[in-house]
């Protein structure tokens, strides 16, 4: 039985080159399904990565109660002072809390590819930003100076938006800002932003408060200490979230939409590809009917014949799945794009093809291969021996 199986399978593989044209239909059909699936899911994966990377569990973001993002939140200078005194925050050597009062606004800057204006986040940060965000590194030029209209641009932003080279000038409400440097931030969402001194930004937009306060905890465990202290303080009405949860929530909706769209489109394509696979395998069985009938006549049983057809279909599907995944990886992995994130502002991210996505693609391919091979395999097993031999 096992011997028969090997004989039949190897026969069908050896004769495969004779059916090259028809077989390529399966490979190409499935490759295109997997390529589309993997590329679209690479978008949501990249987007989730970018936002998730911005979040550390031991860093908190304090917003005014009832605001869901920094752009709509506001804290007074007094709120900020109260937050800075709260327990649970890490302290610097000179006793200052690791807290950055920040102001977030958006600036119109044209996108390089379309030339149309996009909303780029300008974040005013306190001088303690290096302490609160140790991952922030100026890789080109220098840091902005305090109280001066200077800013640094994230690497992601610099790639997507026009005029962010070191030494260039960005215009904001009645003022001109010089780009003094470019920074990286572990590839997270802040790389889509511009950063400047909080006081300089506040004076330019004539605003006295803050949007948010970002604090580094003395340890991840002190989150509840800080949260309880702030939320039970009657002077304050704030929302305390750990950064990880905050950014996960910001990415959730869009990532979900992309995932659903990707899966639905790929599923519809997969149905089409299954029809294609069925066609190919039926015609493969038809052209081989003579061969199959001969095998049956000399004593091979139906089961190995059935398996050999399934195997052929699966093999072609596998090749297609791998080709599709490889195409998606070659063309789109690391491809940088930008979109409107949670709060009216652009987030720059890269398409990320992960091993898991490739596996998902191959699983889909095998599924199509099995479906497309099953019915033709059943037909092959039932080839009427005498008739098929006579027809040939």
């Amino acid at each position, binding site marked *: 039985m096992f011997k028969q199986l090997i004989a039949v399978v190897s026969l069908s593989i050896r004769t495969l080159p004779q059916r090259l*044209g*028809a077989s390529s239909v399966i490979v190409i059909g499935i490759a295109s*399904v997997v390529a589309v699936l993997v590329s679209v899911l690479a978008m949501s994966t990249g987007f989730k990565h970018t936002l998730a990377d911005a979040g550390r569990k031991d860093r908190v973001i304090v917003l005014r109660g009832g605001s869901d993002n920094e752009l709509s939140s506001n804290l007074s200078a007094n709120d900020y002072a109260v937050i800075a005194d709260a327990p649970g925050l890490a302290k610097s050597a000179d006793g200052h809390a690791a807290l950055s009062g920040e102001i977030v606004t958006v600036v*119109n800057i044209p996108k390089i590819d379309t030339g149309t204006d996009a909303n780029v986040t300008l974040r005013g940060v306190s001088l303690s930003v290096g302490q609160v965000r140790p991952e922030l590194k100026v890789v080109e030029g220098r840091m902005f100076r305090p109280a001066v209209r200077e800013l640094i641009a994230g690497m992601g932003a610099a790639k997507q938006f026009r005029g962010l080279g070191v030494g260039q000038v960005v215009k904001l409400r*009645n003022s001109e800002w010089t780009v003094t440097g470019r920074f990286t931030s572990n590839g997270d969402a802040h790389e889509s932003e511009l950063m400047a001194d909080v006081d300089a930004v506040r004076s330019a937009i004539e605003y006295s408060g803050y949007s948010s306060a970002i604090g580094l905890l003395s340890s991840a465990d002190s989150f509840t200490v800080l949260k309880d202290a702030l939320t039970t303080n009657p002077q304050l*009405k704030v929302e305390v979230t750990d950064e990880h949860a905050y950014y996960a929530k910001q990415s959730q909706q869009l990532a979900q939409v992309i995932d659903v769209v990707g899966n639905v489109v790929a599923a519809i394509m997969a149905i089409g590809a299954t029809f*294609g696979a069925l066609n*190919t395998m039926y015609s493969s069985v038809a052209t081989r009917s003579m061969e199959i009938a001969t095998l049956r006549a000399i004593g091979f049983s139906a089961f190995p014949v059935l398996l050999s057809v399934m195997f052929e279909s699966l093999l072609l599907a596998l090749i297609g799945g791998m080709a599709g995944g490889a195409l998606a990886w070659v063309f789109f992995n690391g491809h940088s794009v930008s979109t409107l994130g949670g709060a009216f502002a652009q987030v720059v991210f890269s398409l990320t093809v992960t091993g898991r996505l490739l596996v998902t693609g191959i699983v889909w391919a095998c599924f199509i291969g099995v479906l497309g091979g099953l019915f033709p395999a059943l037909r092959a097993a039932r080839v009427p021996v005498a008739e098929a031999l006579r027809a040939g």
Partner: protein
Amino acid sequence: MQYLPLIWSNLWRKKTRTIFTLLSIVIAFLLFGVLETVDQAFAHPSTGVSGADKLISTNKYSITLTLPFSHVQQVRSVPGIEAVTWITWFGGYYQEQKNFVFALPIDTQSYFDVHKGEFVVDRDQMRAFENNRSGALVNIALLKKFGWKIGDKLPIHSTIWAKKSDGSLDWTFDIVGTFDVKDSTQASAQAYSVLFHYEMFDEGRSFGNGTVGWLEERVTDPSQAPEIAKHIDALFANSPNETKTQPANEFATSFMKQLGDIGFVLRMILAAVFFALLFLTGNTSMQSVRDRIPEFAVLKTIGFSDLRVLGLVLAEALTLCVVPAIVGLALSFALLPVIKRGLQGVELSASSLLPGIGVAILLGVLIGLPPALRAMRLSIVDALANRR
């Protein structure tokens, strides 16, 4: 036309093969129809303000920065402007964050001057709205969606504006009436709208008083709109609050563009679909011609010219593509309401389905031509002798 039965029976020579091919073409065009409409919807979004006679002025450098109220007076004096109104982004939702409500503080007089003839409001309800400072007009569809009634108190949470009185972000309005949108193509853009008094909003908020989010203008002569926009921006050039004035539909399009190059993604997907389809159907029709070589020889023997044979095979391929394409496009048309529910605030039109027929014809010619040429060129003697 007389060859139609011949073409038809040729198509059904191998039933399973034809059925599977037809089905995959149906699927491909179903996708084509759906993705094309979505692409169109993003490329030409419904603006919520119809016509070319509307302008929008925002802060030049950032949409989140406000403009002083005094801009309104200055813009009003610009020649060619018929009406000016002012609005501020409220960022509202009802009870839960997912229940987004497009609540807009409006100036009761000028808003309806700028949007003349766009809203249908009962005369008595309009009077009730004008007379009640905390009154609100609610889109009729929204009212039904949440089961509100006229006379209800409507609590709306703002993610931005705290009230001066108690610092709370929860605002309460009296529903005094409903409105409907006249132009049905603009209906979805207004589907979440609640209109309430700017005066009450500005006095009630704890900060930002005396400012406006953006201005909307209506011009007398739409052809003058670009010049008027330039004129407005020139008024405030080099002031602390420079403006950027653009046609309302352009404003909406630029917002959609910020979502990213959706058209590019959709075109890439369609390219993959049709690349695969080309192989699939191409292979099918090549094979079907190969199977019938002796038949073509017979046709030629009884007097069919080479060109006629070519035509026959081409017609077959065209039928194979165009018929299921129409079915697929019709299916995607049937799906429009479903997509519309998924993409809130987006207007879809069936006109983007028409290019699909052109694509189907192109596809038919592309896949029909190689086998058709082969059938045309075959020599009778070789074919009948089964020498291939």
